[in-house]
């Protein structure tokens, strides 16, 4: 009997120490990065010993590029052309930027301009380029309990949802979409609190599923919403077209000063490829077959130069 106890106790202790060991690791990371901004300002060459032998690139991006299927379409070209494997980590913009800050990713593809600029100012990144944009839409149930169908004024639409106390599901995860949503509430002068305001803390795909299930409103990027219509959803677009709903994506190379694991050369190659005209053309074509309209609008400097408006 006592042996059983001993074994159990050892197991419990071992497990808890092993687990706490795991969670302690990220705790160290912020301290390391806290020190780096001072050195980050000057560009540091990658040590030759650390030149990437195997071609693997870690791309931290938002769930929308992954959930919409864009990456599945464009990345294979890059991988084939350069013999590089791109490992995609699709998370909220908040975490994607944190991954960059901690030196856990080589390239970021995100959409939260204010946070991107802060990232660059802090010296975490060496290069930022415009890539493309899409827009946000407010989607909701066909019954439209708040009566906002057809509106083009996003803050006014949200205000009507709040007045009607119609269920609204928020991403609640500090993502680019959540940041955008908060800015629209602010523009509407409404503090969203109450039973009707559901903070889900999940990705766009999960929130759309939840809104469909609960017959609620939510703010979604158009790409993820359109991709969802293919699988069947009862949600319809109720408000679109407000300039506030504009959603630009940027690509950022993480500062190689963060550590020898950062593949700065590959990251630059990736950015050059992403903003090149052939790739931009491919982005412009993405979704046309399925939806009859593009999901993203290319917007790199090269593209703008080639297609003056």
């Amino acid at each position, binding site marked *: *009997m*006592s042996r*059983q*106890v001993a074994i*159990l106790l050892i197991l*419990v202790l071992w497990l*808890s120490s092993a*687990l*706490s060991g795991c*969670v*302690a690791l*990220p*705790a160290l*990371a*912020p301290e390391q990065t806290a020190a780096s901004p001072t050195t980050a300002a000057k560009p540091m060459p990658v040590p030759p010993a650390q030149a990437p032998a195997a071609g693997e690139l870690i791309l931290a991006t938002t769930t929308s590029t992954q959930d919409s299927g864009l990456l599945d379409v464009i990345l294979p070209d890059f991988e084939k052309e350069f013999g590089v494997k791109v490992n995609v980590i699709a*998370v*909220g913009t*908040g*975490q994607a*930027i*944190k*991954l960059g*800050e901690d030196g856990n990713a080589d390239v970021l593809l995100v959409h939260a301009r204010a946070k991107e600029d802060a990232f660059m100012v802090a010296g975490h990144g060496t290069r930022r380029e415009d890539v493309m944009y899409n827009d946000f839409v407010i989607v909701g149930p066909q019954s439209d309990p708040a009566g906002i169908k057809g509106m083009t004024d996003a803050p006014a639409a949200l205000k009507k949802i709040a007045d009607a106390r119609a269920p609204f599901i928020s991403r*609640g*995860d*500090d*993502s680019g979409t959540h940041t955008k949503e908060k800015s629209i509430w602010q523009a509407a002068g409404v503090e969203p609190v109450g039973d009707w305001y*559901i*903070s*889900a*803390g*999940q990705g766009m795909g*999960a929130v759309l599923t*939840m809104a*469909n*299930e*609960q017959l609620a409103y939510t703010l979604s990027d158009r790409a993820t919403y359109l991709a969802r219509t293919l699988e069947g959803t009862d949600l319809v677009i109720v408000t679109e077209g407000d300039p506030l709903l504009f959603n630009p994506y940027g690509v950022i190379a993480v500062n190689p000063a963060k550590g020898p694991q950062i593949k700065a050369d590959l990251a630059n190659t990736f950015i050059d490829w992403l903003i090149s005209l052939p790739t931009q053309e491919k982005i412009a074509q993405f979704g046309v077959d399925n939806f009859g309209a593009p999901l993203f609008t290319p917007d790199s400097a090269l593209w703008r130069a080639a297609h003056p408006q």
Partner: protein
Amino acid sequence: MEIVTLSLRVSGTALLFSTVIGIPLGVGLGLSRFLGRRLVIALLYTGMGFPPVVVGLFVYLMLSRSGPLGGLHSPLIPALFTPAAMVVAQCIIAFPLVAGFTMAAVMGVDPQLRQQVLSLGATRRQAALTVLMEARVGVVVSIIAGFGSIISEVGAVMMVGGNIEHRTRVLTTAIVLETRKGTFDLAIALSVVLLALSFLTNVLMLRLQGRTFDE
């Protein structure tokens, strides 16, 4: 704090149901012999290894607005994205573990004990209880295993509960969210709370059987 309370409430309720279902099932399977017993045991062992996300998906599809149970709109069927739905999913995860370990513990008891008790005039029910008492250490382990599997589970509660703030956010889903947000400090703090909770519960359960262990 509300997150901790909800975690304990959901997993505690689920554990209660799992115990009520799992222990009689384990004792029954351990003591009786019937046609198809091997099949039931094989199914039970499969259940012990159910991936929580698969359970989550199954419960989700069942309770969904367009699913077979959710479509009934019966007040007896829990709605998706409620604590009750999370309890259902966690029960399905935990009860095979409770039943499986209980069965193993019961089968490990000397079969002569049951014969003796029966020959002394005990009813089958009393005999089963005697065997269960004899196997109590194993039974406690089964309950600990069941609790451990659900308090630390994230896939099913995320899918079925939805991680809604103030409503269905529990420790594990909060850790996932904070990690996604990049707020590692909070994620680590929540992890420590979860580990401490898990450890304390196990210690408590072991204490319940303290006498036996000291023998």
